[in-house]
């Protein structure tokens, strides 16, 4: 199978010499052997290296859960925050220093469950963030309870008789919610995933990559054997990523054929930091000198006289 090439814009900045995926290697992950998250980590490391980003100019922000341990396993700045809060923390970080490349990582429970409100609002703001959700349809770190993406009928420790609720489908949700780059990856397709991540990082706006990243310990039903015969790469099917309705239809597909790849992308909307005049000039907010000009002080005092 050939690796699909996404229509990513050409990067103009010169690539610092000598950056390789090794520069992004850190401590060895504490995930279970065979966990899908290993591939996501290496795909992210490869994507960063191939884009020539320097480790100190990247911050990876996560919540809590197995996959949220990722910042500890990659050599970039990292914030391992609270359960569900990665997008909110990353929003503050990005607005305070919009020159940083900010990547959020986490799981389905973290992002679509406890963090659901931030997810919805970060999308409508079109924050320039790359959000990689390692979706295993289960709560792994708490040893196997149902998650917002658990399929109907799925037996977990908290739904021993089978899940009766409908799952969230993050793809149509993100397309409707205002995300401007919406993709799905699969842990068993690392090169494809790397390309999706590169495209997401280069995209100016909110990019969601929901990655099927099977939990080999607690989700026996939704594992590699389930996905392997079903996933179909959109890039090989001539899918038009600018067709809103088709993107949603594809996003809802589930069964014998489950599409992965880039569903939806639009480049015509500015990211939030581009809309805020405060950031127009003067560099990142966080690096500007503190203090108020005497002219502004006079104006503030005049208002209350």
């Amino acid at each position, binding site marked *: 199978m050939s690796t699909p090439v996404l229509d990513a814009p050409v990067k103009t900045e010169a690539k610092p010499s000598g950056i390789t995926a090794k520069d992004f290697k850190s401590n060895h992950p504490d995930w279970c052997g065979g966990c899908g998250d290993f591939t996501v980590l290496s795909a992210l490391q490869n994507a960063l290296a191939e884009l020539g980003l320097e480790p100190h100019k990247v911050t990876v922000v996560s919540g809590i859960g197995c996959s949220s341990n990722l910042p500890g396993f990659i050599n970039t700045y990292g914030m*391992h925050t609270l359960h569900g809060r990665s997008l909110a923390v990353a929003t503050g970080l990005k607005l305070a220093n919009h020159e*940083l490349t900010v990547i959020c990582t986490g799981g389905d429970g973290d992002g679509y469950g406890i963090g659901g409100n931030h997810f919805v609002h970060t999308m409508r703001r079109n924050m320039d963030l790359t959000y990689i959700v390692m979706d295993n349809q289960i709560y792994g770190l708490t040893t196997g309870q149902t998650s917002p993406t658990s399929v109907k009928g799925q037996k977990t420790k908290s739904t021993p008789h089978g899940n009766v609720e409908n799952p969230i489908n993050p793809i149509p949700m993100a397309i409707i919610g205002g995300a401007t780059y919406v993709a799905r990856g699969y842990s068993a397709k690392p090169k494809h995933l790397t390309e999706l991540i590169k495209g997401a990082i280069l995209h100016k706006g909110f990019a969601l990559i929901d990655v099927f990243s099977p939990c080999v310990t607690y989700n026996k039903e939704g594992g590699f054997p389930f996905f392997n015969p079903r996933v179909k790469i959109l890039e090989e099917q001539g899918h038009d990523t600018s067709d809103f309705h088709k993107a949603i239809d594809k996003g809802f597909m589930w069964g014998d054929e489950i599409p992965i790849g880039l569903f939806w992308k639009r480049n015509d909307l500015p990211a939030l930091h581009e809309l805020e005049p405060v950031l127009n000039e003067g560099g990142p907010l966080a690096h500007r000198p503190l203090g*108020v000009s005497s002219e502004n002080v006079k104006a503030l005092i005049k208002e*209350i*006289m």
Partner: protein
Amino acid sequence: MPKVDYAFGIGGEAGQGTATPGNILARIFARRGLNLQAYNAYQSIIRGGHTFLTIRISDGPVRTFGDKLDGLLAWNQDTIDRHLKLMTAGSCVFFDADKIKPGTPNEGVRLCPIPVKTLSGTSTNKLLANTITLGSLLQMLGVDFKYYEEVLSLQFKKKGEAVIAENVTAAKAGYEYAAENFKPYPTPLPDPGKPLAFTTGNDILAMGGIAAGVKFYCAYPMSPSTAVLMYMAKHARKLGIMVRQVEDEIGVINMVIGAAHAGCRSMCATSGGGFALMTEALGMSAMMEVPVVCINVQRAGPATGVPTKTEQGDLWQVLGAGQGDYPRLIVAPTNHLDAFKIMPELFNLTDKFQCPGIVLSDLLISEGTASVDPDELRFDPEIDRSALILPNGNGNGHAANPWGGVRDKTYLRYKITDDGVSPRAVPGVPGHVHVVSTDEHDEDGILISDEFTNPHKRQKMHEKRMRKMDAVLASIAPPKLVGPENAQVTLVGWGSTEGVILEAIEKLAAEEGIVASQLQIKWLVPLHVDAITNILSKSKKIIIVENNYSGQFARYLRSETGISAHGHVRKYDGEPFMPHHIVDSVKEQLAGKTNHSVPVHEIMV
């Protein structure tokens, strides 16, 4: 002795206008150099209800809106019905002669009916009644009309020349009507002195944050803290501040922490309910050692409580905010100017000790208006960011390996030091790559909570964080006793009650010959235990005055110092203390009648 000490009440239903006339009066008085305090009692309603604004002025200090009214400006019958019986000899009551039937006032109260319809001429603008009535009041106070005209022009500038002209004409009519029909107040306002500024507590907290160098502010609207958001939003672009209204208070505090981690001085404000949502993340601020400042403007709780009423009911909430032990700073400003000045001080301390700082304000101080000397509003305070390393500052580019991370041990984010403070590099600095986490971690930031928990490392890191508090106490001023050491009674309060307690003490001395002293606590965490113990151990009788049901400060004081107060004055009806509430309570307690007084608010607002 001050020449004048007047207080005026303006009452009507929401929408009839109390804030605008209050603002006009405040501006006229402050511009003459008079001190003032104003407090608006209102409800959570856009139209209707009963809104009552009290504004008190003097050429001497004004610490509270006081006990008595010298004038009542009643916009509707309901206001007359509620307040006329409380008006005392010498006071004037202004009302629309065509619409309001005053009934019989107390002896010596002067009724000043104003023929609003006649004086309005052809205009149908109902709010002109307010302009006319203020004209009459200002005439009776001996204020030259030009000052009124000047402020009206400023107040209605945005509404255009026609509205200004209409108001000035009406104002003049009211002014002249009073000159012909009413006797002036016995003492006219003194000649104008050095002009003063006037502002609300929320606005001045925002200004204090701006002076401290806040570059990131976000919030979710919640009464009575919303004005901080509005002030910041209004000035954001001019001052280069990122201001955002976000999805909820959980989002607020997490964004503030994200921005602070990038290196911004970051702030948010909320009330008790919003603060409750923030508490987990405040622990994150402490665990990651990322400094943030959060203002909690207390309102009457619990739950939704009384959104437009004041209380000091969140002390235990902020003391215990979040799980686990962590270093935090908590300060309760004692007056408006103090609210301004503590902001840069708190930001310096949070930067230095890399922990969250909480400002415990309340509706009384935050929504109350007060005059301040503009020269005291120093927007160039000392800024000390301590061990911060920014990409464009110290530490920039000098590391041997700019991409060095976990394998490069030359920089340790959580280096264990004697004072617990470690150098804080922000993302973007070469050679300082690290991870901050809410999990317990080692000196390099690497988690110790998951694969191999290590009790010895955990203990060391916990002690490192908590040890920072040891040095804070020396950085903050201890509370001081006001009044003689051998006073008959020491009144202890905290935060916003400073002014009303001090006025009560003056009244006790002047009216009852009772000598009382005051100990007002501003810094709640850390608490100056030794200084407080030293002062209170010499007190003959300790009475704690606070705006809550359970004596939250009394219990805190006992837990930290072992000192149990002899008596308590507690008010939890939503309205602030008035001086006489405290005077009467102290009297009954000194007489041995009780050791627990709960004053009754006489004014139904």
